[in-house]
């Protein structure tokens, strides 16, 4: 009798064990701006990208089951951290991803650190996320302020744009961009002739543009984002800034901003991105599927959307490698750092000790209207910045996770 019971127990253990080995349950939360300023660079497009990533991965690995949930942080850090808290405490979300708006991302990163969650940032820009504010539960995936200003500013200086005037958005993000870009300009032998701090959400930049014009600087650096960037570029065209021989350098411009400006206005603008839909066949094929999932004609996928896809894919790979059962999220991050990254959109890459994903960056120039052959054909590639030069050196970020 005792023997039979023992056998039954053993059988039960085996059955459960093999069932567990087959089934890995994961919950992913896309925390983004669904309805406001950043809804086009992240938002529903990020959700579509997440769905594609999950569909692709579970097709090859049917034993992984993914629950996808969506949160709208409305660009408010308190709303964002409330959702993150609830996701970690109640809903047991394994991965929080996206989160445009540096303010919200920094808050959520703190929540992830306190509650031992896992947070992959694709949407936010601040290089502090892997600098002084880095932690063992956060990975910064797609781009950051250092990379953007380094790419654009050094390329401009090298091609003769050696005197700069900055239009800087008057808050932490603008200062960070201006600081990083000025350093690059001066390091490459250029000069910063002046700057003007413009209040956030300024409607009319003509006053500031006149100041930039009279500074006689060769390059006007736009250390701003979103509507401010669009307004300043639109009005610079009107005031004949580019025709007058000065160049504009957009320090944070997305494909969706170019669509909003139209090529006649945006042509000639130089900018840095890490992903563009029309660069290769794999990206083009992915865009077709993204278009179907997003279902909004005329919208372009941005590098943030691609980063969401790539981040989720790598997370699921790491999670699969760690097998079923409960895992510690810090260990998942470690695992993700150990495994080289490889996906259809970003190719091969890696994650550093400070939590930064490393891949090449690209310097683009916006095409002239007559060069554009089909809708969404907006960039020509000017230079590729190799992965080892594109990002802030590990030693300069002052991230406490990096020793010595």
């Amino acid at each position, binding site marked *: 009798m005792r023997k039979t019971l023992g056998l039954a127990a053993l059988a039960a253990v085996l059955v459960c064990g093999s069932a567990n080995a087959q089934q890995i349950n994961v919950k992913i939360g896309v925390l983004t701006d669904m*309805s406001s300023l950043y809804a086009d660079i992240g938002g529903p497009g990020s959700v579509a990208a997440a769905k594609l990533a999950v569909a692709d991965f579970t097709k090859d690995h049917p034993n992984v089951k993914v629950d996808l949930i969506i949160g709208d942080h409305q660009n408010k850090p308190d709303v964002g951290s409330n959702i993150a808290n609830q996701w970690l405490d109640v809903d047991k979300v394994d991965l929080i991803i996206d989160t445009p708006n540096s303010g919200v991302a920094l808050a959520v990163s703190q929540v992830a650190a306190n509650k031992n969650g896992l947070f992959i940032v694709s949407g936010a820009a601040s290089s502090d996320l892997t600098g002084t504010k880095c932690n063992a539960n956060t990975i910064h995936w797609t781009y950051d302020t250092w990379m953007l200003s380094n790419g654009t500013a050094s390329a401009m200086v090298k091609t003769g744009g050696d005197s700069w005037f900055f239009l800087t958005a008057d808050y932490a993000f603008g200062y960070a961009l201006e600081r990083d870009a000025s350093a690059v300009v001066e390091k490459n032998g250029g000069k910063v002739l002046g700057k003007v701090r413009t209040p956030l959400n300024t409607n009319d930049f003509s006053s500031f543009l006149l100041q930039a014009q009279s500074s006689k600087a060769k390059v006007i650096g736009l250390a701003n984002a979103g509507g401010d960037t669009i307004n300043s570029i639109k009005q610079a065209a009107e005031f004949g800034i580019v025709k007058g021989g000065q160049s504009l350098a957009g320090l944070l411009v997305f494909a969706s901003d170019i669509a*909003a400006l139209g090529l006649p206005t945006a042509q000639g603008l130089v900018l840095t991105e890490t992903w563009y839909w029309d660069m290769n066949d794999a990206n083009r094929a992915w865009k077709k599927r993204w278009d179907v999932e997003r279902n909004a004609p005329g919208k372009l996928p941005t590098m943030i959307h691609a980063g969401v896809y790539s981040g989720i894919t790598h997370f699921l790979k790491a999670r699969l490698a760690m097998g079923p059962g409960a895992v510690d999220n810090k260990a998942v991050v470690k695992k993700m750092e150990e495994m080289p990254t490889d996906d259809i959109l970003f190719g091969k890459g890696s994650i550093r000790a400070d939590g930064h994903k490393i891949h090449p960056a690209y310097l683009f120039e916006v095409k002239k209207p007559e060069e554009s052959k089909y809708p969404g054909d907006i960039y020509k590639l000017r230079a590729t910045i190799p992965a080892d030069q594109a990002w802030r050196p590990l030693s300069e970020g002052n991230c406490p996770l990096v020793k010595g």
Partner: protein
Amino acid sequence: MFEIFGIPSNALFGQLLIGLINGSFYALLSLGLAVIFGMLNIINFSHGAQYMLGAFAAYLLLQYSGLGYWPALIVAPILVGITGVLVERLFLQWLYKLDHLYGLLLTFGLALIFEGVTRNYFGSAGLPYTVPDSLRGGQNLGFMFLPNYRAWVIVASLTICFGTWFVIERTRLGAYLRAATENPALVRAFGINVPLMITLTYGFGVALAAYAGVRAAPIYNVSPQMGSELIIVVFAVVVIGGMGSILGAIVTGFGLGVIEGLTKVFFPEASNTMIFVIMAIVLLVRPAGLFGRRA
């Protein structure tokens, strides 16, 4: 070339002119608000959204019926004005007898709906709209480069502002309107259709907002939130000028544009705040506004 407070004089002239141009937007928008408040006693919080609808209408006309800037300048305000008439007939007409707060809440709600719906269909990044070919380029005035489009903006704005002021203050129609606000019952007794007049006035105020929106489309980002960013400043202008005072709205609009322009030179960080500082001071000294009559 001489200097004023360390700024070269020609730079300063440039900034004054820019200020005047921006002021013309403030004037036009606050004019619509003043007309609506003066005649209907409604604080039209959806004015910013209606300005945005004007810009979107211009974009849609160009995309779907090939109508360029010039026709849109007339067609878009009419279309948006018609939506204004509907709003007045369906909702606002029931609120005149109630506290101002009801009108404010209703129009604020409408503004949120207009913004939400456009964002749902067009996203938040914005839509492209360029300066019409006939107004491309600009003139070198010696002290600054003045884009032709900006010159047109200021001329058009002055014409409309003066025209509206003239109609309301100096014509028979305007006299009826003003009388109808003072004592609707009596004016009705003279056989004048007061409700119709009020409806059309609201439609006109809304059309003014849409007209400003069309003019803004080539130079400002055409996005769902473009109105809400501007409307707060415009309300400050109306409060400074005196609620409901048409002349006050026009003069204050231009004046504040100039002051804001100068702030952008001397203390750029404060340029968004300056108007509210002035508003606070004016409210302390003259609670009814510069041109307002004490109730």
